Every structure is written in structure tokens, then in C-alpha cells.
């Protein structure tokens, strides 16, 4: 299971890559693997203010659906509209072209409670 080191993770299988005052959010390889073939992504509304752990959207697959949560507080500043016509990007490239939304972070970005790649990887192997 791929877990890139250049970002932070939630226990509910989102990742966030923070650069300056922006954070890019998507779901992990483990999450897309458990969803199977994604068919629809309900993109959140740009401008919506969210708290950490708020439910932001739902991703549907052929046989499953998963609720997606915001890793940190912020305002949704962009969404990946490419997913409207290519929801399968979530499966093929969950850490890249399958990103879901971007947050304008509240300063300073509160990242307590988020996991490093190492910690997230350990969470998945403790079975």
C-alpha cells in the first residue's frame, strides 16, 4: 500500500499536502482500494468553511460509498472538476491527479492529530 512521505494523513484515510497557506486533499491508496471502482464524486462547494473532521463530500463506487472528511479547518478554495468526467482518477492516481479539493488554511494551520506517513502506514499494518 503506497503512503507518500510528503504529506499528512487522517485516521479516516484522507491525505493533505500543505504548501504555504494552501492544503491539497485527497484519499489514500487504502481508501480507494476499499471503495473499488469510483463512479461519482460529489464535489464540495468552493467557499464553504469547514472544521477539522467535518464531513465534506461523498464518493460513490460501483458497490460502495464513503464519506470524506476535512483533515483541518479552512475554506474550500478549489475542487478537482476533472473528477466530474474522470472519477476513476481516484483509483488510478489517488495521490496525484485524483486530488479532491484544496483548502485555504486558517493560520496557523492546526495539524495536531494528523498522522505522519510512518504513523499512517503503521495504523494499516496493525491487524
Amino acid at each position, binding site marked *: 500500500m503506497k503512503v507518500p512521505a510528503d504529506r499528512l494523513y487522517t485516521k479516516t484515510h484522507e491525505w493533505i499536502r500543505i504548501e504555504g497557506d494552501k492544503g491539497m486533499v485527497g484519499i489514500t491508496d487504502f481508501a480507494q482500494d476499499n471503495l473499488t471502482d469510483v463512479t461519482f464524486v460529489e464535489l464540495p462547494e468552493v467557499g464553504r468553511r469547514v472544521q477539522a473532521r467535518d464531513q465534506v463530500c461523498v464518493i460513490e463506487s*460501483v*458497490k*460502495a460509498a464513503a464519506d470524506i472528511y476535512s483533515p483541518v479547518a479552512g475554506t474550500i478554495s478549489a475542487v478537482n472538476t476533472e473528477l466530474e468526467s474522470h472519477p476513476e482518477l481516484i483509483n488510478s492516481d489517488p495521490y496525484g491527479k485524483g486530488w479532491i479539493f484544496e483548502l485555504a488554511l486558517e493560520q496557523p494551520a492546526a495539524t495536531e492529530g494528523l498522522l505522519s506517513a510512518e504513523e499512517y502506514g503503521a495504523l494499516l499494518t496493525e491487524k
Partner: protein
Amino acid sequence: MAPSLQKSEHAAAVDRPVYLQVIYPEPQPYRRFLPFMERLAAARAADQVTDTILLLEHEPVITCGLKTRAEDFLLDPEEIRNRGIAVERTSRGGGPTYHGPGQLILYPIVRLSTSPLARDGLLAALEEIARRTAADFGIRAFRRPGMPGIWTERGKLAAVGYRIRRDVSFHGLSFNVDCDLKPFSYINPCGLAGEKVTSVAAESAAPPSLEEVQHCMLAHLDSMLGRVPQSATPAQLEEILGRRPVNG
């Protein structure tokens, strides 16, 4: 007072993680069961209860997963209700399906990050449980590429659909043992037009009882989980949830 839970005899004194196993003796009405299952999933997410497997039958119902379209109904929902079958919206992914007496339901309310069922994906795990259970009764069942569920040459034997909230799964697997297959013809099951459904009874000369199938299914589940089942009655599960208030 914590309800006293009985550990299965064969599993006693084995130092492995446990899971809670709850078997419902009577078919459950979907409309009442869904909010209960959602409450259980929220309690699991809050660590107020351990991983729990529910085994049950439903009273006759057609449930509409999130992907259900109006054209998946081949008979007017009102007419379906007139025939004694409830029609309910639900929170799982996928299209419409039928549940009723004689169909075995397995709902895994488990934390995915720590469950062996999610190691290679929950869909594959539930399909494998169904495939192995069918094999116990001499039925050659298989996966079909791009067509989730478990199939025989005659049609679909088992269907899978679930939801994931806060790392916890709910909904799950339905396995046709000896149920009325006619209601499947009122819909495009799982959104698939023209695909047939089958059951263990339709596949075998001497159909087994639901209890026998349940027994085999649980054995496969346990071997895939590598965990010790701890039996609780439906009332004990209610008590566990009742004494611990659920957040949100």
C-alpha cells in the same frame, strides 16, 4: 452492568482479538434496522463497541442504493408495495436489490484500518466468503470481471454493497439461500439489466437449511478474520449501545 457474553467454546483461552457476533432469529424490518445499524456504525467509530458482525434475514424489501435510477424499477414501486414488499432508500453504494426471508445477510460493522477483511479490499473479502460458502454446498461460484458479486452459470448468487463512515463499514453481503427470486424481476438488480439471479436452493437437489449455510459462512468469516467470535444476543447488543451514548 455489562451483559455477560459467551465466548464460543472452541475459541476459549485463545489469545486473539475478539469480535462480536450477533445472530437475529427473526427476519428484521429494514426501516427499523437501518437506523439501528447506522447507530452501531457510529458507536464503532467512537470505539464504544468492538468490531461487530450481524447475521440476519430481512422482511421482504427492495432497497435503493445511492446509484439507483428510476429506470431500474421495472414495476411501479407502488405496485411492488401492494405485493407486500417494502421499498426503502438506503445509505449504501450501488443500485437496487431485494432482501427477504431465506436470504442470509452478513453486515460487517468493522474498523477498516485494523480489519483483515479490508487488507485486500472489503468487496473482495465479502465475495470470497460467499464463494467459499457456495463451494461448501457443491456450487461452483465465481467472480465476473466488472460485475461485482458472486455468480454461477445460472445467475447472481450473492450481492455486495456497503458504506464507509469514519473508517467503519456497514451494510454488506446478501446471499440467496432459499428465498423468493421473483421480486428481483421487479428491478434491474444492482442496476444490471437482463442479468438473472439464483439461489442455493435453485442450484442444489437437496437444499441445505439457512442455519447450515450460516454455520459455513461464519467458519469462512472466522478463518479470514483470524479473530475469536464472542456471541451476543440482539438484546445484549442493544444494551451495549444503550449504556454508552453515541456521539452524532
